[in-house]
């Protein structure tokens, strides 16, 4: 029998925020379009937001802020390494997005004057707009599916297929049965999140990470192998969050009057931006751990904070604090650095895209945490999900049909067969992951230097070989092998980009002991990585101004 092939028009890999809104908009534009979503988990709650969200971090509300002001803020917050087009377009469309979400029934609280409640999160302008919607993800999914999007649950994307340079579909892996799904599509959107399992969290629990642990750089790896570029991989970031639980809290508290204190009780952040660098500095200088104090706030504010923390984003926060016997009225909240992670939503790492969500591969789009639109947050995931849908619909209408490249399928089937066995294999995937993430922490994060990057090369090769000896007796274990291989490839990109950028920039995110100064003359540019015949290559790419095309 011939190869079983699932045929669709628009394949979306990753049914999170960006993927679901893209499906919804593609079907709004063309109701008879065949839209298929590969989702590694189950689509109802899958993705980084899992359930709800307490704010849209970037909304330019007319009369109060605008896209130009946002561009200035994001430039300052990204060390100048930002393309103007995508960030401008995102801010420009953000208010229409808010209005659209209100149409779904999402609540954006208003103050006594009927104005949206905004909070200051960026260096300038109050772009963060309060939102109260614990069921946001389920609402989105319902809208995408009721319009006819077909979810394929428990399937992760493992390989993009290309037909003479343009995208032709993808291969997915069922994470329970270990079976392959081959999908032919005229356009593909990768929306599969960042790399959350990059180093180990302080709890030493493999999945005790800040960002959704199902995000393992699958999209980065697929895009690279298909010929697209990734960028910002040297932006190895971490944040300061609740000690051990690594759950979100900082922005919610700081923007509502919480003070961050060092160990001497000195205020290092109050009523100002989300200044990670000030906290990192206190930590590295031995003035840590830092604390958030809320006890000075009126009961009403504390209740507001508790309401958000305990109902919306990670409601389990309530259990964590109860377990540690912490009452915000009496005790401060201890903060520690989280694990390092790569993410286009909070940082700069991701697949290179322009303001049309296009990548370097025709027909391939990227949106959300997997795409590099500087610190775009949920706003970016939604706006670029919509943009990708609009572009894909147009592309599908205009471009001829594609063929499935059988040799690429065969290659992937052979790799799959080799990986899917436990016979004679003696490495446990969890051990490999733990060891690899330890080495990433040892060699690839600040303070960085060339010597460390050289040492990483040994481990990269070793882990690569070790992956061949990992036992995968069932589909779940097999999916972990693919995940770890993807994290490893992202780590290699991070090593290459980190070594290539011979300067220090972005505070703790890229601090080199051998090049301690920021060097705008040589390094005010992107470092873009592409794969050439299986080898990663780094290159400098210029930063584009408003009105200029982004170099992909």
């Amino acid at each position, binding site marked *: *029998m011939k190869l*079983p*092939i*699932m*045929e669709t028009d628009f394949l979306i890999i990753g049914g999170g925020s960006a993927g679901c809104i893209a499906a919804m908009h593609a079907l709004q534009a063309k109701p008879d379009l065949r839209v298929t979503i590969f989702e590694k*988990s*189950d689509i*109802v*709650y*899958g*993705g980084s937001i*899992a*359930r709800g969200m307490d704010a849209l971090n970037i909304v330019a509300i007319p009369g109060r802020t605008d896209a130009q002001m946002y561009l200035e803020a994001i430039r300052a917050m990204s060390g100048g390494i930002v393309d103007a087009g995508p960030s401008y377009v995102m801010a420009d469309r953000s208010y229409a997005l808010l209005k659209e979400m209100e149409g779904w029934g999402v609540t954006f609280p208003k103050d006594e004057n009927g104005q949206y409640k905004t909070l200051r999160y960026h260096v300038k302008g109050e772009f963060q707009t309060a939102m109260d919607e614990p069921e946001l993800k389920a609402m989105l999914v319902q809208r995408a*599916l*009721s319009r*006819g999007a077909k979810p394929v649950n*428990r399937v992760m994307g493992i390989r993009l297929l290309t037909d003479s340079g343009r995208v032709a579909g993808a291969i997915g892996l*069922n*994470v*329970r*049965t270990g*079976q*392959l*799904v*081959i*999908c032919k599509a005229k356009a593909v959107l990768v929306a599969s999140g960042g790399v959350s399992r990059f180093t180990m969290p302080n*709890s*030493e*629990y*493999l*999945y*005790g990470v800040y960002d*959704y*642990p*199902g995000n393992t750089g699958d999209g980065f790896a697929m895009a690279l192998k298909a010929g697209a570029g990734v960028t910002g991989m040297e932006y190895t970031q971490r944040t300061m969050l609740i000690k*051990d*639980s690594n759950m979100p809290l900082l922005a919610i508290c700081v923007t509502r009057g919480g003070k961050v204190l060092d160990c001497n009780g000195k205020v290092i952040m109050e009523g100002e931006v989300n200044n990670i660098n000030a906290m990192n500095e206190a930590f590295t200088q031995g003035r840590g751990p830092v604390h958030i104090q809320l006890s000075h706030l009126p009961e009403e504010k504390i209740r507001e904070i508790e309401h958000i923390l305990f109902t919306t984003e*990670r*409601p*389990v926060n309530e*259990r*964590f604090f109860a*377990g*540690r016997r912490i009452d915000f009225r009496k005790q401060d909240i201890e903060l520690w650095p989280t694990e390092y992670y790569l993410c286009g939503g909070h940082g700069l790492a991701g697949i290179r895209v322009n303001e049309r969500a296009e990548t370097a591969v025709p027909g391939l789009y990227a949106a959300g945490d997997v795409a590099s639109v500087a610190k775009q947050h949920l706003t970016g995931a939604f706006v670029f999900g919509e943009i990708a849908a609009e572009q894909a619909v147009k592309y599908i209408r205009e471009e001829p049909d594609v063929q499935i490249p059988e040799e690429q399928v065969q290659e992937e089937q052979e790799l799959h067969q080799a990986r899917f066995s436990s016979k004679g294999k003696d490495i446990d995937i*969890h051990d490999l992951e733990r060891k690899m993430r330890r080495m990433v922490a040892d060699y690839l994060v600040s303070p960085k230097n060339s010597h460390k990057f050289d040492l990483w090369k040994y481990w990269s090769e070793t882990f690569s070989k070790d992956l061949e000896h990992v036992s995968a007796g*069932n*589909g*779940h274990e097999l*999916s972990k092998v693919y995940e770890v291989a993807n994290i490893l490839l992202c780590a290699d990109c991070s090593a290459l980009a980190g070594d290539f950028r011979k300067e220090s920039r972005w505070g703790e995110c890229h601090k080199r002991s051998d090049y301690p100064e920021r060097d705008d003359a040589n390094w005010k540019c992107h470092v873009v990585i592409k794969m050439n015949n299986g080898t990663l290559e780094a290159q400098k790419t210029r930063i584009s101004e408003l009105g200029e095309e982004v170099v992909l």
Partner: protein
Amino acid sequence: MNSSNIAVNANACLACGKCVDHCIMDNLRLVLPPCRQASPLGINYQGILRLTAAGKPAEAAKLLRSCTPFGGFLAVWGDKAASQACSRSRKGGALDMARVLSWLVQREESAVYSADPDPYAHSCKTVAVIGSGPAGLQAAHDLRRKGYAITVYEAAPSIGSTLRFLPSGEGSSPAEGGILPSIPAEIMDKTIAMLLGMGIDIRTFSPKGQSELDELCKTYDAVLCASGKGSVLPADDLGWVRDNLFAAGACVKNQKQIGTLQAMASGAKAARTICNFLEGFSLDYESDQRTARGLERFHGLSDAQEDTADMPAVKPSAQEYSDAEAASEASRCLGCGSPAERNQTCWYCLPCEVVCPTHALYVRVPYLVR
């Protein structure tokens, strides 16, 4: 030692598997209760009994309907294999499931025979089913639920005649405990009305012989032959014959005589294969339902369940159970099935807890993080 991140209240768990289905880290597995494991149609008796015991017959009936379109039949036949597997069979006597089902079907008729349209599924693909016996009707039902347009061709003047008039000694197998009684006309009619209500086109007086298969295969996207013992088709384990032709039930070549419930199970399996074929998956995609749905075998009673005092089955005061008697009998269910943490990948994100219909599941922060 129990280091699991989830705590399950075994007295409330319906073993419905919603938590497993929605876990975004693929962390959970559902340990199947032995009754469901043994039931040829995979009926979730634990859930039905728990809801009955809790005085929620409407929900119990809805659950029964979601497991099978043939709740009315099971109330007549019982589910011998499931009853025999019941852990109670060595502790005070097996649950009288047939009697509970019979009570439920009478009491909640509209839910048991609900046409239950799937709100999301719609497809322009078409499937022809030959035969309106147990395998054919089960497959037609399952495929319709997936959104396909279904036409059933029945040679006889009436729908499901093999079910209406099961000749003694036929249509059953030793596993089903001997001879199954014929289905009373009233139950048959309600079941057929439900299937028609789902939009399945059933045509009587429409014999389709071997010679007409090729023509049907050209007209429809897929064809399922479920015409019973009269014809013979060589199908593989998945029910695939050739190209877009599939077979299920007694017409499959080289198999032992199969009973009515097995024929239904065979129809369900062929329906899954056809669905894979039409959607472009490999034919065996998720054919192992246990792995695909995260189900595991039962490993014996827990200490708490062992401690439950022996208690015999409730005897009905009249011919049928009263509400109180049904609830009382249902409350004897030991609740052998429950979710368990298997992969140690918990992100304590709570969807499992949110989707649990009875609040039986509680997520703890993992010990390393606590």
